[in-house]
């Protein structure tokens, strides 16, 4: 069994259109996490940095730059890219290194800056995360890829566009309670249905925004945690999964195999089942994704996700609250940071810092984040430490 690993501190910038450069954005979240953990940079033994489009802000090989700016240039850093799943997949590597005993204290920072490129260039850059020969190169954008998944799902399970819209409405309601959300705007089902079509059947409000932002956490060993005497969250489950890179390679287009595999590993490691989870932060890059996620993660049977949303089972007061932070849809999607942002939400929920959006009596939470259309996924399970 791996050693116990804890989240000791967490910090995040606001998500949205940010004026700072990518390194400054990363530094703001990193220093917040360091302050939150009550440590000094010299306590950090390794840095893990996730990012996708740093080249658009003229900075790649970001980890050593961040370590240097923290005043610890001698500390080894690792830069990781896995499309929209970069944050959670980087978190897994940070977790694994602490769990294996290589380090007692590490920094895990995810960052993205993309809004300066504009909608068309952002759409194009994101399409490079697809299996470009078959997808982006044949005219599919990411909304288009998920729209094709939505069309297949709706045809098979008799779901409709209103079901998709309800996911957006619910997540915007949650995002209204999160001061760091990118899109703090209450919307209705009609607002979603009347919004411009991006790639049919998906409309503007079915899609998450392009966001800038950074999120960071400090992970540590049990010994390090014990010495700190601070509020903690334990990482009790971790799973990774993979799917065919292209949608065309999937036997069933209405499920994401990597999510199923990652979730099963995380549940097994934690010794829990989906019924034990009190809330989840899932990858709702598009409304259809959340419906498929909640089935793949085992919260609802295949084909029943849309009905669960329709009945309010995923609202903050529902059977299994999904995305109390507002999710990618409202909180925003700075793709290198998103997976870490989910961990920040869990940390804030479990340490009394999620003012106004606390899921009452929650003690076990799950995060789920994937890259591209689910080619790579990571799922983590967290336990509140009383």
């Amino acid at each position, binding site marked *: 069994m791996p050693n116990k690993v804890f989240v000791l501190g967490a910090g995040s910038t606001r998500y949205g259109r940010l004026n700072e450069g990518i390194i400054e954005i990363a530094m703001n979240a990193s220093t917040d996490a360091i302050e939150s953990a009550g440590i000094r940079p010299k306590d950090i033994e390794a840095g893990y940095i996730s990012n996708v489009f740093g080249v658009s802000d003229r900075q790649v090989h970001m980890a050593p730059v961040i370590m240097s700016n923290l005043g610890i240039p001698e500390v080894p850093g690792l830069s990781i890219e896995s499309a929209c799943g970069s944050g959670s997949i980087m978190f897994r590597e940070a977790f694994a290194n602490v769990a294996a005993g290589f380090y007692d204290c590490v920094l895990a920072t995810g960052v993205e800056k993309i809004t300066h490129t504009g*909608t*068309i*260039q952002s*759409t*194009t850059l994101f*399409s490079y995360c697809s299996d470009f*020969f*078959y*997808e*982006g*190169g*044949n*005219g*599919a*954008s990411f*909304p*288009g*890829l998920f*729209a*094709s*998944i939505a*069309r*297949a799902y709706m*045809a098979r399970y008799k779901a409709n566009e209103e079901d998709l819209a309800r996911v957006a409405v619910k997540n915007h309601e949650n995002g209204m309670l999160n001061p760091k959300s990118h899109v703090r705007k209450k919307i209705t089902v009609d607002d979603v249905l009347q919004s*411009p*079509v*991006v*790639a*049919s*059947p*998906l409309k503007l409000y079915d899609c998450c925004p392009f966001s800038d932002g950074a999120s960071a956490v400090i992970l540590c060993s049990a010994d390090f945690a014990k010495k700190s005497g601070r509020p903690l969250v334990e990482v009790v489950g971790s799973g990774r999964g993979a799917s065919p890179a*292209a*949608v*065309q*390679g999937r036997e069933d*287009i209405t499920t994401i195999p990597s999510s199923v595999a990652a979730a099963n590993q995380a549940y097994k490691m934690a010794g829990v089942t989906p019924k034990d989870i009190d809330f989840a932060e899932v990858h709702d890059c598009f409304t259809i994704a959340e419906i498929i996620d909640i089935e793949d993660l085992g919260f609802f049977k295949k084909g029943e996700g849309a009905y669960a949303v329709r009945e309010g089972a995923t609202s903050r007061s529902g059977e299994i609250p999904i995305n109390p932070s507002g999710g990618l849809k409202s909180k925003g999607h700075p793709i290198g940071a998103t997976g870490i942002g989910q961990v920040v939400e869990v940390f804030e929920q479990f340490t009394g810092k999620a003012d106004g959006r606390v899921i009452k009596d929650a003690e076990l939470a799950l995060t789920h984040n994937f890259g591209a259309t689910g080619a790579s996924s990571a799922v983590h399970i967290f336990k509140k430490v009383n």
Partner: protein
Amino acid sequence: MSKTEVHDSSPREKFIASARKQKILSNKCIVCGHLMLTTVYYCENCYNRKFQSVELEGRGRVITYTIQAVAPEGFDDAGSYAWVVFLVDGTNFKVSGFLPGIASSSDLPLGSSVRVVDYNQKHGLILKKI
């Protein structure tokens, strides 16, 4: 299906050359007989790497698709089009491509037949509804 010999080009170049002849190039594993796209380097079933190239008629039925209202760069002058995933006739594998002239879902019911008509560097695998 017809057998073909292709030499001295990458799997993607071979795929493109076939598409320009309105075909889909596949590989048949000589050990287990599994049929897959030519762009897969090892047999998905037994991991063997020796294949017989098989050119398939570039036809199939639409499994799903989207109509891109906001197109990525390079497709902004393409007019109204669909990105389509179709099941290649006589196989268990799917391919995706660019289908021009599709403006609404009534233009392309799921299950419609499409065929490959070309491949070009600008828009990729070009399809036509039949």
